């Protein structure tokens, strides 16, 4: 049943929710932690906290599924959430924000500073977008079209994140904030790595809070995949050089130079840690 309020709707199922979204111009309200910062907030909200479909955390053989309205705290408390995701979530803001902020909201806000989105990039997660005409699954990298520009239709909602289970075990996560808590990322790095019988089977890195969109370059990472460790060592400088060109930082409270230098330092450190 939908509770209809002045300036807001509280649906209790995904079907109700999508029906409302299709008919009206409503701002989805997930955790509210980005939305509520604005002083002059007009319009009407579509509250997502009572929709069971958006709160589910489940798995199958190949994938983990996180409902978009799961809060950071709910995921931190879930046995299914992988360590790399928890590493990032545990450093978001502070407890009160983690208790309300959701992954769907974090992604949907469209910022390259979104700490959970960085993990979804590096893990090659896909987003389930639900709309009045059905669902579609979009790789997160394709979902971000530019700064605050998303591949999302007016009738659609981010309903779930699908994260492949493979390659999650060996990871690196680094966040640079202005302090240890309550910090917005000034730079963040995530990497995944796997090797089998001396050959690199997987390598993925992503850089957050550097450009308009989180940087994830599979084409560059493929320079290392399939190589033996000695071969990878030989290719290391070319790999780093490729990222040096690929990373074009924007300037904010910290300079573009700082961002670039630190990104490359963290990339090199990641390779060191992985034995390259």
């Amino acid at each position, binding site marked *: 049943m939908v*509770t*209809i*309020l*002045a*300036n*807001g*709707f*509280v649906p209790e199922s995904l079907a109700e929710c999508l029906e409302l979204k299709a008919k009206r111009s409503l701002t989805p*309200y997930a*955790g*509210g*932690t980005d*939305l*509520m*910062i604005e*002083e002059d*907030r007009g*319009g*009407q*909200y579509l*509250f997502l*906290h*009572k929709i069971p479909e958006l709160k589910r955390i489940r798995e199958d053989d190949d994938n983990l599924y996180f409902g978009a309205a799961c809060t950071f*705290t709910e995921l931190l408390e879930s046995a299914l959430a992988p360590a790399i995701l928890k590493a990032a979530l545990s450093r978001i*803001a*502070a*407890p*009160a*924000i983690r*208790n*309300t902020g959701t992954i769907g909201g974090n992604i949907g806000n469209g910022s390259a500073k979104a700490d959970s989105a960085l993990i979804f990039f590096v893990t090659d997660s896909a987003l389930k977008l639900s709309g009045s005409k059905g669902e579609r699954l979009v790789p997160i990298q394709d979902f971000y079209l530019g700064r605050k520009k998303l591949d999302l239709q007016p009738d659609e909602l981010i309903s779930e994140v699908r994260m492949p289970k493979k390659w999650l075990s060996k990871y690196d996560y680094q966040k640079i904030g202005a302090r*240890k*808590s*309550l910090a917005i990322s000034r730079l963040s790095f995530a990497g995944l790595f796997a090797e089998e019988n001396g050959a690199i089977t997987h390598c993925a890195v992503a850089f957050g809070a550097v450009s308009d969109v989180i940087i994830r370059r599979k084409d560059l990472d493929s320079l290392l995949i399939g190589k033996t460790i000695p071969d990878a060592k030989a290719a290391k400088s070319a790999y780093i050089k490729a990222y040096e060109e690929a990373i074009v930082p924007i300037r904010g409270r910290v300079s573009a130079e700082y961002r670039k230098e630190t990104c490359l330092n963290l990339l090199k450190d990641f390779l060191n840690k992985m034995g390259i």
Partner: protein
Amino acid sequence: MADSMTFILNGKETVYSGSATARLLDVLRNEYNLTGVKCGCKEGECGACSVILDGRLVNSCMTAMGRVAGSGVVTIEGYRETERFKALDKAYASVSAVQCGFCIPGMVLASECILSKNAHPTEEEIREGISGNLCRCTGYNAIVKAIGIAAKEGDGLW
């Protein structure tokens, strides 16, 4: 035609028929006169407006009223009636952890959320638990100590 919504405010069923987009902080302060809920920034950055929503600490400035529909909200005005508050009150007083006092209502509710999750937290867990509640006066040591004392002295309450 809008429905009104109900929520449990400090243990009492409460009917609200105002805007769903209004800040919980403003509604608590202006409509229910719960001025123990402090406004420090309206941006989720200071924790002075912390309340407990369905058992979890949240910033009331970052919470729209629609989110509260059907939920339970506890502010310092409700919490101060509990035995747990008395234990915290005694502990905070014993180390003079209250200076200007503006962060304190939020800090007390953060203390409750630390202890209700873990009755015997380490110092690190205490620090983490109040890490979203800025205090400019104390340097935090006394507050951290107070929560530790409350955990010990109030053993069994949490």
